[in-house]
């Protein structure tokens, strides 16, 4: 808040990626000068909403406005993040901001990317609890410590910021599962109630699914929920190696 207030910036140079394949025009950067409420630190999404009032054809996804639904992953001044919880004070360079779609995925329009590859990889890891045992009448018991193993894993909001920042995913989006899907794989492997650990590991054993991760940690540095896919991936690798011995 104070960064902006002290500089008393009241208008922002917004440069935004525009593309509508139906229009026959090539992608271009549109430059807009946006007035913002004096002395307030608004979020990047608020800025986009103001821009959309000027030009209703600007397209982006958004819903919750509080960083929990994962709709508005985008590339903000070169870094992936969520528009709704990235304050201008953090994002601005001078009074300039450049917004692009998440890199590496096909663009549907403007800031909207096609998430199909991302979701397909998620589906591959069987993202649901597998437990073939007879169910108790009440809950399946889980100790506080067992439950703690899921912290840092289950909170993923599927925004795609991590996978689209990962060079390995850019090169092999069909074979390398990517950080988000692998984080979820580890979420189910770590769940004391899941009985399919071995099958899950079998599925990850090939040279690509997990092993294409080279520990560059781009994923960790962009995750808006502060999650650590690299750590989860290393845990999976360790389990696979241990099993092979």
């Amino acid at each position, binding site marked *: 808040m104070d960064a902006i207030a002290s500089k008393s910036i009241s208008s922002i140079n917004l440069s935004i990626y525009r593309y509508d394949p139906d229009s026959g025009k090539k992608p271009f950067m549109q430059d807009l000068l946006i007035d913002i409420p004096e002395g307030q630190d608004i979020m990047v999404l608020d800025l986009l909403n103001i821009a959309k009032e000027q030009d209703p054809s600007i397209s982006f996804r958004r*819903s919750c406005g509080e960083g929990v639904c994962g709709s508005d992953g985008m590339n903000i001044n070169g870094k992936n993040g969520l528009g709704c919880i990235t304050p201008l004070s953090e994002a601005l360079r001078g009074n300039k901001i450049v917004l692009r779609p998440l890199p590496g995925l096909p663009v549907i329009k403007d800031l909207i990317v096609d998430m199909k590859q991302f979701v397909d990889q998620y589906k591959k890891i069987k993202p649901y609890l597998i437990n073939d045992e007879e169910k108790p009448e009440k*809950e399946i018991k889980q100790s506080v410590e067992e439950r703690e193993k899921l912290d840092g894993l289950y*909170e993923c909001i599927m925004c795609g910021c991590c996978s689209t920042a990962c060079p390995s995913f850019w090169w092999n989006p069909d074979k390398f599962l990517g950080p988000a899907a692998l984080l979820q794989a580890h979420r189910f492997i770590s769940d004391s109630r899941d009985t399919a650990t071995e099958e899950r590991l079998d599925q990850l054993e090939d040279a690509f699914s997990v092993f294409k991760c080279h520990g560059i940690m781009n994923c960790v540095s962009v995750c808006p929920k502060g999650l650590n896919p690299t750590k989860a991936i290393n845990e999976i690798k360790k389990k696979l190696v241990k099993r092979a011995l």
Partner: protein
Amino acid sequence: MAMNGKGEELDASKLKVLEYDGIVVGGGGSGLMASLQLAQSGFKTAVVSKVFPTRSHTVSAQGGITCAIQSADPDDDWRWHMYDTVKGSDFIGDQDSIEYMCQEGPKAVFELEHMGLPFSRTEEGKIYQRAFGGQSKDYGKGGQAERTCAAADRTGHALLHTLYQANLKAGTNFLSEWFAVDLVKNGDNQVVGVIAFEIETGEPYFLKSKATVLATGGAGRIYQTTSNAMINTGDGTGMVLRAGFPVQDMEMWQFHPTGIYGHGTLVTEGCRGEGGYLVNKDGERFMERYAPNYKDLASRDVVARSMMLEILEGRGCGPNADHVYLKLDHLGPEIVHKRLPGITELSKTFAHVDPVEHPIPVVPTCHYAMGGIPTNVHGQVLTQATDGTDNVVHGLYAAGEAACVSVHGGNRLGGNSLLDLIVFGRSAGLHIENSLKDGITLSKATNDDIDQALVNLNRVNISSTGEDVASIKSELQKNMQLNFGVFRTGDLMEKGLVELENIREKTQNIHLTDKSSRFNTARVEALELLNLMEVAQATAVSANERKESRGAHARDDFQDRDDENWLKHSIYFADTKEVTKRDVNFRPKIVQAFQPIVRSY
């Protein structure tokens, strides 16, 4: 043929057709519970959602799901939960529905746990439960209960993702990022499907089905300050009203006490459940004055009004004395970080304070629609005949926040919405499953019937001049905030109603400037505005008509509850813009009905 830049008019012949056994409009908790039930029984099921399902607003629910699963207290009893819910509703909740929800609840919660929902745990490895407002033991005589099952303060996220995952497993079809526009009715007043378009391509469809479920969620965006997502625009309510069916208790809007000041984003009641409390500018814990027994955990309507009184009487905090503080700093970092990690994040982002060190500035924020599309316990939508009797609308179901099976009456208790979603989402799914097995015959829609459902969409698509969507929307929101907020009075509401008529005239004449086909969010927002308009007007007319104060509906000019005239549901039809009454159900099946008493906390 996608909707295109030439703004051509659509008719039945230009639509593609897809057919399913059951169509669920809405991929939130209630929709996904209904679809899961259907898909698991082998029926061809589609979920239509304007956002990818896990982006639905259920994901934002924080505090938990209230249910007497006897984890925190082995002697807990669903009947006590029922008592609290009836009392919380200020006695216009339907007791058959409330009984069904409280009794069926535990089964549904354990089912979610078996699906993998990562609930927080107790030392014995059971599901963790926390205290929430309005919860008691022993029919109000045994003190505060702890009945809200929680996954940290991210219960909605955990629940929604778990249900999405279970639907993937069950093979549900997802029409993700599709926008449903209007219901298709046949000549017998039965619903045979819905008009929708794929947002990515702009391709319009007739989605045909023997059973259509509206699970479209809330409509908090009729107000300026709300905890609701931007997509919560009451689309299902709009569709139902345009189809000539009624809505119920639309005056009943819950204002949640703790919205982050200046933003509206919610911090959960679970904060107070974990021991947080509200203070005014003098540092006084003022709820001790208003609700000596339950204090900060009195029912939401009571706490929100008390806060507004503190502010109106000059005891608010900050330079403008226009908010109060929620104190958590006395709880210590351990509790705050372990039990309320999401709140810590939100508070830092939107209030710029770390709750471990500083109190959070809060004001009441529009949060939840108790009213909605009237249904019975099977989720079947009801309409009212001219003689006042209930009739089922064949082919149409509703569940979740869009519906009003009326378990919340005049005021919803915390954690009861998530329970409502899963219990009645499932019961709708079950009823459809059984009806499909028995065989459903609905007569076909004619081309005229289909064209009828295209009127609105065409109007927007062919508009060539007219009013700007964004500015009408903000006018509407301001009007609702000002004239139909926490405290209401006849004069202001009359003024607001006149204003709304003006706004409606403008909405008749909106101009969609961008007519492109591909991911046209401007088209979506224009259609959403038409739905907001229907919801706002239903709210305004019903609020003005209910001449008493009950639950969330507090009038300065009628300050008392009037059981003689208003122990009733209000029913509103859009064509007449008139309100009629409907009896509240006082016939639970197992327990004796709870009779109205003075509601104090």
